[in-house]
């Protein structure tokens, strides 16, 4: 990039009141049709959730976390609960473990379905924007049947879960999952099978695994590069049931460019994620034992926590989601809670991925990284 080229550059603000930039803004410097510099800006949704958590007790904290990312509400609230459980050393009943895991995967499926629609909308197909969202409604109905709320389930609590599975919920979940499975070929045709989709995404937003690791990308964005980095397998939370069953980490290997990924690979990766989630739920449902769903002493144990530090991590839909919790002795509230959102890294990485791309490819790049503004603004 020589200085003469930058003389002809112009600056375009992509957001914060842009149609597809909902709550964030990137300052793009473009020369002709090409972006030479991208400066993502954060902070439009900043509500200081970490400070808020310092004034909520250990049962209330997860309500704040859920609202950071509505699409994966249960996955977002879980790290906090895991961190609390690590500090108190709570043992969760077997049934609650499996129920948590099922809900987690269920939540992941509807979050990924939401992303299909969002990505298709960003690439300009409004039909595909609404089809997955309609299917997602059935998942939300099932959530509502179980917990009473469609998005912000607040299902888990330190020591177990709040609501027991009912036959009605199981029936609704089966309907929803069956629909997901039945509609999979349709969406495969409409997304991965569409020639125009391939034209728009292949070779766009290209990065290697090494770069992605340096930027801190995780989850599907790095699994698309062929690295099976998945906390469900690598570092499973002791209070989740991922180690009870046998399952494969979803990872795709593109023969054309091994160890690298473009927007199309990330789409395929997310398709595979859904298949894995369906598989895990299918394997977990038969081994669901009878028994209590919550440790009866959990409530009294979480009133005041001992001094300690806990690091709760979970593989969210968008990557590693974690909460680092520090408590002082006999504290009702955490001393410090650090929320690590997966999209913090993926939004930052736009700064490195975008330069050199065409202006029209910018929505394809950020859409394929699945950013959610709540995660970096918190």
């Amino acid at each position, binding site marked *: 990039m020589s200085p003469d080229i930058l003389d002809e550059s112009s600056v375009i603000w992509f957001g914060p009141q842009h149609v597809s930039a909902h709550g964030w803004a990137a300052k793009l410097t473009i020369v002709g049709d090409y972006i030479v510099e991208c400066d993502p800006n954060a902070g439009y949704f*900043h509500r200081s959730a970490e400070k808020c958590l310092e004034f909520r007790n250990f049962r209330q904290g997860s309500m704040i976390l859920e609202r950071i990312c509505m699409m994966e509400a249960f996955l977002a609230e879980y790290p906090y609960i895991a961190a609390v459980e690590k500090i108190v050393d709570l043992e969760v009943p077997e049934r609650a473990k499996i129920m948590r895991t099922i809900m987690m995967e269920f939540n992941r499926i509807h979050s990924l379905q939401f992303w299909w629609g969002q990505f298709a909308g960003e690439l300009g197909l409004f039909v595909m924007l609404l089809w997955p969202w309609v299917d997602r409604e059935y998942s939300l109905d099932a959530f509502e049947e179980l917990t009473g709320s469609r998005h912000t389930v607040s299902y888990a609590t330190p020591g177990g879960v709040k609501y027991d599975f009912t036959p009605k919920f199981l029936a609704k979940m089966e309907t929803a999952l069956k629909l997901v499975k039945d509609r999979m070929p349709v969406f495969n045709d409409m997304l991965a099978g569409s020639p125009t989709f391939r034209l728009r995404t292949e070779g766009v937003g290209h990065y290697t695994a090494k770069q992605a690791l340096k930027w801190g990308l995780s989850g599907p964005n790095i699994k698309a590069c062929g690295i099976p980095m998945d906390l469900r397998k690598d570092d499973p939370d002791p209070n989740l049931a991922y180690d009870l069953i046998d399952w494969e980490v979803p990872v795709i290997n593109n023969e054309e460019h091994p160890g690298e990924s473009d927007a199309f690979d990330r789409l395929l990766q997310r398709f595979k994620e859904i298949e894995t989630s369906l598989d895990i739920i299918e394997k977990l449902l038969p081994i669901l034992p009878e028994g209590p769903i919550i440790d009866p002493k959990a409530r009294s144990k979480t009133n005041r926590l001992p001094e300690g530090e806990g690091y709760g991590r979970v593989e969210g839909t968008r990557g590693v989601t974690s909460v680092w919790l*520090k408590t002082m*002795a006999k504290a009702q509230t955490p001393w410090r809670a650090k929320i690590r959102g997966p999209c913090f890294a993926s939004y930052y990485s736009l700064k490195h991925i975008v330069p050199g791309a065409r202006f029209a490819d910018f929505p394809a790049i950020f859409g394929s990284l699945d950013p959610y503004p709540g995660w970096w603004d918190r």
Partner: protein
Amino acid sequence: MSKTPGSASTLARTIINKYPDIESKPLVGNKVELVVPPEMIRDIVSMIDEEVSDALPESLFGVDLTEDKYEVIYIFWSHEGKMLVQLRVSLEGETPEIETVSDIFPGLDWHERETHELYGINFKNHPDLRLLLLPDELEGKFPMRKSFLTDRSRMDETGLARPKPRPKPGGESS
């Protein structure tokens, strides 16, 4: 990838062999914590970068321990070794200073920016320490410090008695 050490304790031993000032503390599982003096943080982070070929810079954040004591915690995760390394740096002073590591791990760039604006910890040689999350009027107020008072008037509206004062920080952190 052959250089990737098998476990966290092996890595800790490798690092301590080179820099004996560092204390290591094993955590639950394949995890290790290293207490690093502030002036050596660049050496340690670059050593992790060399030793662990697939180190993921997971997190970097500050902790306010009141009385002008701060901690900065770096968390690295390696998929190959399934291990987690946590670096803990203790800082002191009104505006504590530490060297930046954003050139070694670009992913920590924004984490450092965030810690700078929320805690007032100055990262030396950081290329771009603008505000990340905060609005302009909160520049220099460092809202995540414990001395930054928030509006608690909502709690008075509930009709309950005022809660008991927060417990004092007990000694040194674990």
